[in-house]
């Protein structure tokens, strides 16, 4: 496989995953906003900006933080890299560059999602925004399904590798922001706002039902943290992403004979994750843990790029 192709496939995976994540985040935030007593709505949208690392970019627009402005900013604003439209643009550019490597179904999934945003200036109200995010999720699900029906070879694995690395990044940020930055001062832990915040996290990673199956004692922050960090059953957990990264790198190594620093890093990380207990993480400082995790994930990204000569 061409090194450039591998790089495009990997980035395609990352951007599709990012688009899907932003769609879920916007969706969950609208819900949180609707449920929360005022003025918690503003806090909900501030946290969405923090998760996507776009607080500064939004400030430049000069607009007031609130549902209309932030929802538009996160979906339709092409001037910054944290928006849905930019993620889909980038995903489609990468997909176009490797059009030959994708099946029609996979390409169509991306292209359909991208087409949703053409000639669209305003998301409209909450209902229209939800319809948009739902359509994006449908299209990315279609892409996901198509990926799993493609030949089980490097093409699929590079896309999935990008997805796994991006997913680990997204979940870690989500948890970090929600837990440490935005629990409003003075709100009792376990109070109404708090509870809604935790539900929002679960919704963003599609884990509301999974949580009920795995934990019997109702909504507990410690359990949510456990689920998102240490439970490999949950596809969007850090443990699952770490495990999947190792698996995909193994598949690539077997097929291509290429292995190196990235494999070593991914395996070390996975070995540590298996032994990780969320109680210990909380005791040792969740924020510090997640910061380290994000830095390590970035290093792994560069190791992958080097190992496969992304150039």
């Amino acid at each position, binding site marked *: 496989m*061409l090194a*450039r192709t591998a790089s495009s496939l990997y980035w395609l995976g990352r951007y599709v995953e990012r688009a899907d994540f932003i769609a879920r985040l916007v969706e969950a935030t609208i819900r949180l906003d609707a449920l929360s007593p005022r003025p918690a709505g503003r806090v909900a949208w501030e946290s969405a900006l923090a998760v996507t690392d776009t607080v500064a970019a939004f400030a430049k627009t000069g607009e007031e933080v609130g549902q209309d402005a932030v929802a538009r900013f996160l979906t339709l604003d092409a001037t910054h890299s944290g928006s849905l439209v930019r993620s889909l643009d980038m995903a489609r*550019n990468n997909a*176009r*560059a490797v*059009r*030959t490597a994708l099946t029609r179904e996979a390409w169509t999934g991306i292209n359909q999602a991208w087409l949703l945003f053409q000639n669209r200036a305003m998301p409209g109200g909450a209902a229209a925004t939800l319809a948009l995010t739902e359509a994006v999720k449908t299209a990315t699900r279609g892409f996901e399904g198509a990926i799993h029906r493609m030949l089980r070879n490097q093409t699929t694995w590079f896309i999935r590798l990008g997805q796994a690395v991006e997913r680990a990044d997204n979940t870690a940020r989500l948890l970090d922001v929600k837990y440490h930055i935005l629990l409003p001062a003075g709100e009792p832990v376990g109070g109404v706002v708090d509870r809604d915040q935790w539900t929002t996290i679960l919704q963003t990673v599609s884990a509301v039902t999974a949580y009920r199956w795995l934990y019997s004692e109702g909504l507990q922050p410690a359990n949510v943290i456990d689920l998102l960090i240490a439970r490999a059953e949950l596809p969007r957990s850090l443990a699952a992403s770490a495990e999947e990264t190792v698996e995909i790198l193994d598949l690539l190594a077997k097929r*291509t004979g*290429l292995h190196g620093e990235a494999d070593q890093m991914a395996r070390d990380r996975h070995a540590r994750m298996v032994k990780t207990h969320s109680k210990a993480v909380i005791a040792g400082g969740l924020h510090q843990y997640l910061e380290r995790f994000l830095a390590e994930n970035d290093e792994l990204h560069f190791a992958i790029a080097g190992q496969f*000569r992304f150039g």
Partner: protein
Amino acid sequence: MGIRQAFDEIMGQAGSTIPRSELAALGTWIAGTPPEDLRRRQQSAEATFRQLGITFAVYGDSDASERIIPFDIVPRIFLASEWARLSEGLVQRVEAINAFLDDIYGPQRILKDGVLPADLILGNPQFRPEIAGIRPPHGIWAHICGIDLVRTGPDDFFVLEDNARTPSGVSYMLENREAMLRLCPELFHHFRVAAVDSYPDRLLETMRSVAPEGVAAPVCVVLTPGHYNSAFYEHSFLADSMGIELVEAADLVVEDDVVWMRMIGGLVKVDVIYRRIDDDFLDPRVFRPDSMLGVPGLIGAYAAGNVALINAPGNGIADDKAIYSYMPEIVKYYSGSAAKLPNVETWRCREPQALRYVLDNLDDLVVKLVDGSGGYGMLVGPTATRAEIEAFRAALIAEPHRYIAQPTLALSTVPTLGDAGLAPRHVDFRPFVLTGSCGVQVVPGGLTRVALKEGSLVVNSSQGGGTKDSFVLMDDGAMLQAQGPGGMTQSIGGMTQRMGGN
């Protein structure tokens, strides 16, 4: 105004209200399919093209950087006998083009024999002295040719233009057929249509056949300028359907006159390159030193015989508009007999007598820039305004050598779906001819372009043209017998799922 009395590909002579007898089944199909139904199918085809991203870019049009080419649901049909005659003419012409290139970049016999004026070749910017003396592997230059044809009557086909560099449009031939098979399957019961879907296999076979000597399993690639190029869809489509890598210049590197591509595991040797990049941007060391594009050293590797380039660099001298008018002489010189496919009558404005005639008859002529393409730099006398004609008159007087002129032909028409139902629209046709080391073959189909505006003769996609499927019939025995149920049963493998029950 407009063009009078055009021959219609389906209905026959102008004004006829019933189809040509061999095509009666198409008339029945059209009569039996309401226009709304045709429109629905057409929209469905276009929606599919959009979803697949079968788009082209219009340069200078930033609002619509990606557009689909409109697709028309009514096919144009060639009878088997018409096609057989056309094919003979195409093979003869393409063989002559290859012989001409081999001669021009070699011994130049045709100049020494005085058949062509030497300055026409040697002073032509399309002539590439840089590659004179290089022999392409197997002596083949124009592996893929698209010969643009027009028709004015039942037996009157003319070559409008030769494309021996990097002709595009073959993906439309294939995708239009896919759309027709899906949307109008009944038509294929009425007509036995030659399949075009083997084109990628034939192309790959052609590429492999011209690999440098001694390479057992040649590595073939398609070289694209990248995904911002207007024809990128086609590049990726062809690489995909041949199962070979689609590379950009940056993916290739030349070391010691050998071409390599950068793979995830390191460098892999490349033997055959179907390049969809113009000569100018192929190798900055040879053609355009200012170009940031291209693969430095590629021409060196080609000269050393280590890689085949498809089509060969330098081919522009064979399809140049200034050379076009000499094609009948060129064909005769190399094949020894008269051209089976005639040219459109052409006045070379570089010749004073011809220029005088053209200036006197601008109202009736089509005037073209020798180095223009895509329908730009062109005057269509009968539909032009007075001001346009006077502007061209001034340009002609100032630089006569840059222009040729041709009569305004009554291009054939095909019924085409418009806002007011079906109406005749002018068409042209681009068949694709492949030349490998085992000979020349004509793919039974091609790209029919249609001018969607009433009376318009400009079929270019950048100027509002559309496309149609082009059927080539395998026999002229009119309609096939209705197919009986035959041996095929509905259950495949006999496996069904039982619903409910226990």
